[in-house]
């Protein structure tokens, strides 16, 4: 039970951190930096796939590598050949957040 409480408290802390992050405004995210800072932690090289396949693979990696949503979107942009920095809004509905924010 004690261990379960430890796990729950960890989760609560993380959720609080997530909530505070939600309320914080971030500047731009460079897709190139997002790719290098996250993907290259484990991958030496990645292959090119179609845009829709890349979306699926980024979903998979978002879960596996614990990527925040804005980083996942920036990586998707990088892999799809978009190099312009992405604006991350201060707060937006979760259902729309995966579509908005591009310059």
């Amino acid at each position, binding site marked *: 039970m004690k261990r379960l409480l430890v796990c*729950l408290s*960890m989760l609560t802390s993380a959720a609080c*951190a997530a909530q505070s992050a*939600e309320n914080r405004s971030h500047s731009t995210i460079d897709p190139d930096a997002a790719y290098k*800072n996250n993907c290259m*932690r484990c991958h030496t090289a990645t292959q090119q796939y179609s*845009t829709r396949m890349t979306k699926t693979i980024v979903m998979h990696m978002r879960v596996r590598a*614990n990527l*925040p949503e804005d980083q996942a979107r920036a990586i998707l942009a990088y892999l799809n050949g978009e190099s312009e920095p992405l604006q991350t809004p201060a707060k937006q509905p*979760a259902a729309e957040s995966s579509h908005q924010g591009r310059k």
Partner: protein
Amino acid sequence: MYSPTRSVAILSLQLAMVLATAARAQQQPTPTAKSSEGGPVPVITGMMSYQSNFSPGTTDINPEFDPILLLPIGEKVLIESEFSMSMSLDRDQGQWGPAVVDHSVEYLQANYIAHPNLTVTIGRFLTPFGIYRERLHPLWIRNLQAEPILFSLNATSCNGAMLRGAAHVTKEVDVTYATYYSAASTVKVMDSDKQIGFRTSILLPSRRIEVGVSYNHTMGDNRHNMLGTDFTWNLQRVPLDVRAEALTSKEVGKSYWLEAAYRLSRLGHSPLLRNTQLVFRQEQYWLPGDPAAALNVINGMGGLPDTGTKRSTIGLNYYLSHGFRFNTAYGGNYATGENSHTWNVGLTYRFAAL
């Protein structure tokens, strides 16, 4: 007859359907520049590998095929599965032994992205303890084909549920977390222990440094606790990756591995240099204080040495085109009465298709 695995599978499917329905309900048509390109599509990916190991008097060959299915349902739900099939054929003192075929479900999970910082996972998933099991163990990702000793202690999958995600603490600091519960299962291809645990890490993205802490409490016959820490640093000024992981447990012993991988791209522009990587790994394992008392637990962890062991391995990887990678390594195993050296040569192929 009650079957925990069947219950987990049925529960997983039911929850996947609920999550899929919820995700569909959440999706709203949002006009974006990219919406015309369509959403994510199912992907079949995976890898094939052929590895050979040569040590004095012994040769073994290990072909392996790991297909992966990624099945997105909208942009919030992803069902994914990896099936692993491998064969081991040994030649010892001039005699070929029987070919041992092994197969297992590495993971069969439904992920629901419930929030930008929270993903709910149910089903069978890789135990998020340290970095090797979840991130580095696929043969096309790991720098050295031989697994570290420490991997024998946590090469498990869970049948249960997991909450995970990441968030920005400051502009320069992210925190990641994963916490899980697993039920016990004895089905061969989907076995698991009853266990709970978590992993959390601090990530400095712009410095490319991550430091993580993991805890696991395994219940049942193999009851034990493990505390682990991991470190990843991808240097920016030189193409060097440094990774390390350490684990301590009163019941199963202590171990660490430290690995450095250097890409030769800075030494010249020729393809030979650009695509070559040198790797070095140092590792050590210490038996628990009372090995006799821990015998049952240790015996349940295949690949764990029965004495304190040091290993040093140096390797070379060459990245060919179209997902092929050639690898070779030479390693020394240093233990009382068990000193040996092993050559490894192999080829991996990573593929993805619609």
